[in-house]
């Protein structure tokens, strides 16, 4: 199709309107035209992605997180070969000083037991990211279900769910997590399941509240009534008409919550309540919080042991927050241009 044809749009009633630029105006550059075409038949989320790509800070955060995920996923393929296993002591160091400064073999040095810090930071990303993502997933699943029921069926069900959420929110979060995890037998803590469930279950009330308020505003829209007038059932209305329009705040909140969940995991691990490496079931389990705990004796002499996992936690949590911010800006309908 020629460009001239493309520039002519049919408006209402079949009247042909000429939307070509007035003569004398600058012809659109290739870049502009490509941008216009790529935004042609855009969806809400296609549009959001378009805007997110223009947010350098969020894009940087996303790149950092992708890098981290790739490193964590592929760790078994390259880390042990070059730097040693995260929980294995470098046998060459036995009998000598174990706290080594950074060197080509140990880029971030070794810790007090002679374990490679770089390997530990990379393997630590596995636990942190998995726990963060899964815990938020648990919270989002519970929160969306209860929030949707609460927002759609106002009345006694709403009151019941929201009071239940209030009770949960009144729980001292960290203390309750400590309590829960400390009564579990040690062997069950070799897996991430207890930590994930604890953080997830404690996190649902905020998600439910955000989603409920989102549902409350979306369900007032005429298209929900129109859907009902088409004969759609309650379930269809919630899932097909309300949910896709109400999910944006949850997307933002969940992205930011992953950072929070990582922090909680680190705090619990620091207190000795996180994942305990089991020689058989989880030989490579490392937690950034646990690393900081291990290193706190050497804070004055060998700050690196605390510093590296600390930087890892800080950059990861910051990246999730920045990404969440970017997602929020990208999804903000008021900013649609």
């Amino acid at each position, binding site marked *: 199709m020629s460009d001239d044809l493309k520039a002519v749009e*049919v*408006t*209402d*009633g*079949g009247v042909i309107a000429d939307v070509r630029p007035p003569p004398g105006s600058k012809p659109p550059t290739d870049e502009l035209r490509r941008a216009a075409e790529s935004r042609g*038949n*855009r*969806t*809400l989320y296609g549009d959001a992605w378009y805007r997110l790509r223009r947010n350098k800070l969020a894009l940087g955060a996303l790149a950092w997180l992708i890098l981290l995920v790739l490193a964590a996923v592929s760790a078994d393929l390259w880390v042990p070969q070059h730097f040693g296993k995260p929980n294995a002591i470098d046998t060459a160091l036995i009998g000598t000083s174990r706290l080594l400064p950074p060197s080509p073999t140990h880029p971030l040095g070794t810790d007090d037991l002679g374990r490679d810090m770089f390997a530990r930071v990379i393997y630590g990303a596995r636990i942190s990211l998995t726990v963060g993502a899964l815990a938020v997933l648990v919270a989002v699943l519970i929160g969306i279900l209860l929030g949707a029921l609460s927002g759609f069926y106002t009345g006694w069900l709403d009151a019941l769910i929201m009071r239940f959420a209030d009770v949960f929110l009144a729980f001292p979060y960290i203390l309750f997590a400590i309590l829960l995890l400390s009564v579990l037998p040690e062997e069950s803590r070799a897996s991430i399941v207890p930590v994930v469930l604890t953080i997830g279950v404690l996190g649902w009330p905020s998600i439910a509240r955000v989603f409920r308020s989102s549902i409350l505003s979306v369900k007032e*829209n*005429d*298209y929900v*009534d*129109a*859907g*009902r*007038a*088409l*004969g*759609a*059932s309650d379930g*269809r209305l919630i899932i097909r*008409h309300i949910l*896709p*329009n109400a999910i944006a705040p949850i997307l933002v909140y969940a992205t930011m919550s992953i950072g929070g969940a990582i922090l909680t995991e680190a705090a619990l691990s620091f207190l000795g309540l996180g994942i305990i490496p089991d020689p058989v079931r989880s030989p490579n389990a490392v937690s950034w919080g646990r690393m900081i705990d291990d290193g706190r004796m050497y804070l004055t002499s060998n700050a690196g042991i605390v510093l590296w996992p600390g930087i890892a936690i800080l950059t990861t949590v910051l990246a999730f927050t920045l990404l969440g911010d970017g997602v929020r800006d990208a999804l903000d309908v008021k900013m649609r241009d």
Partner: protein
Amino acid sequence: MADHLLTVDDLKMYFHTRDGVVKAVDGVSYTLDKDETLGVVGESGSGKSVTALTLMGLIQMPPGRVEGGDATFKGRSLITMKEEDLRAIRGNEISMIFQDPMTSLNPVYRIGHQIGESVRIHRGASKAEARARAVELLGLVGIPHPEKRVDDYPHQFSGGMRQRAMIAMALACDPDILIADEPTTALDVTIQAQILELMQEVQRRTRSAIIMITHDLGVIADIADRVLVMYAGKPAEYGTLDEVFSEPLHPYTWGLMDSIPRAGMSEKSALCPIKGQPPSLVHVPSGCTFHPRCPYAKDVCRVKVPPFREVKGSHGASCHFAGQPDFVRGCSLDLEPEAV
């Protein structure tokens, strides 16, 4: 009584609010047959929309409650029907066109998806069948290049096109009754005329009955076969288009007609608008609800509620004096309504 497609009989829908009982619909009756258009006209808050929404079962209950009367569609009561059965009728046998096309389409779905939704719900059509039906309907409502526009999102449509899409949505299952709730109010005048024309054209093809809700007498004159004038939840006047327009019986109908500017009006013959505001439905005036604004009100109007009376054939009004030979229409500006 002959079997009508839809018979609404003394329907009463009240809302129980903290401030008291709002009688949004209070004793409305009418019948509707195939191929016929009923125009429901009245000011904002006169109960036009609530009447229609009650038929569709789209009123939240509570606070709403049907306090009396019935609505019979093809011999079945829409009022006592189970929600499940009502859902099978909605969008299938009775469908609705909403007032504001800008907000009545879901922004995250393609136009075609939304038009095809009801055939997927009611007829179990596949995605491809629903899409084909959507293309066909978009063509029917006059959207150019329907096979291309079917994949557009609502924000890519103009207001008039969206209303056309809404009409296509309502038509998807060949409904027997099409309820149009002020379908042209949100559109500009030239598009209004196109949409009304389209609805008439659609009716010629599908022979469905239309309930046209509007506050615009011009729209009624264009499209309706019969007219129901509503005031404060009650029927003020009911009759054929001819009857109501050539021999209006109710002072409220007179007032509505005298409020319309006409071409060629001299400066002297000023408009005669109805004075005052519609009453709050929580504190309805005693007697005839229109008496505080009626320039012809007499003592009896303040005390006694005028029942709906048929004056000539089915043409009737809720006014004590309707049809009396000496009760004639005059410009309401000449007569000051009594202080309330």
